[in-house]
């Protein structure tokens, strides 16, 4: 195994809180080609019962990537980024993310195992709001292809 298995159980908290802004939600919605009014029009979002614009379900990946980057770039882990592929991703939304949220994220290393010449890294990003309440749990399987492939 190329990856250091002692990393299981480690946690990488984001250095700073992430402030969810209107223009970022609009930009992300545009990038996924989604014209839903609740991503663009605050009045439409309020009419639907939200305080402001709602984030698309995969918007939380922005926070996941920030915390994941720290782990991936940790030289002691021994991960070759060029050989890494995204195996799976899931999100559990404890509540929708909306404009104005101040989100904290922490990445947990849940598992490292070798399978068929590859290393499988399972990570979990817990996203919480400024009150410390859970917002999103995002899980990913990252696959690092072996040298012989």
């Amino acid at each position, binding site marked *: 195994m190329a990856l250091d298995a002692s990393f299981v159980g480690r946690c990488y908290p984001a250095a700073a809180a992430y402030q969810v802004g209107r223009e970022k939600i609009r930009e992300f919605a*545009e*990038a996924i080609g*989604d014209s839903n*009014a*609740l991503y663009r029009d605050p009045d439409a979002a309020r009419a*639907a019962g939200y305080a402001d614009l709602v984030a*698309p379900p995969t918007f939380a*990946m922005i926070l996941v990537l920030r915390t994941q980057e720290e782990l991936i770039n940790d030289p002691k882990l021994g991960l070759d980024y060029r050989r890494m592929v995204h195996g799976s991703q899931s999100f*559990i*939304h404890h509540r929708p993310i909306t404009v104005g949220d101040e989100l904290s994220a922490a990445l947990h290393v849940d598992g490292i195992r070798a399978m068929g010449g590859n290393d499988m890294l399972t990570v979990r990003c817990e996203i919480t709001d400024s009150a410390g309440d859970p917002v999103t749990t995002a899980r990913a399987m990252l696959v690092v292809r072996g040298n012989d492939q």
Partner: protein
Amino acid sequence: MSRRRCAEVGTVAEGDELPSLEVRLTRADLVRYAGASGDFNPIHWSDRAARDAGLPDVIAHGMLTMALATRLVTTWAGDPGAVVECAVRFTRPVVVPDNADGALVEVSGKVAKRRDDGTIVIAITARAAGQTVLGNATATVATSPASPASPRHGDISG
């Protein structure tokens, strides 16, 4: 309006098909998604990096494909905040050649299950170049704003 459409979701039956979605992805779309998401992995915009990684060509971000798969469901539900859970496996890359046609991603979905807690599970299929690109792709939709599984954040109308 989204409330009303959300209520309509409450009347669906297992096996119902969602309106399908076809999205053409070009290199420009990948660059735009890279900027919006912060995923600047060069295999999504550099021919050289894609070749070095052993790929046939530049490929779309898996998360962009997942976003399109989820978009099928949020468009159907009306309220994106009703999606309480979504999950995919990335089984094949979506190869995006550097031309005007790019890659066509076809997304379809159907109601797989109605759960006792009022949530609806949608099974999603995504295809590109005639092959499926996602496995076990699902999204779970809450049908009732009062559902404890999905408290409406900032709901001012109670």
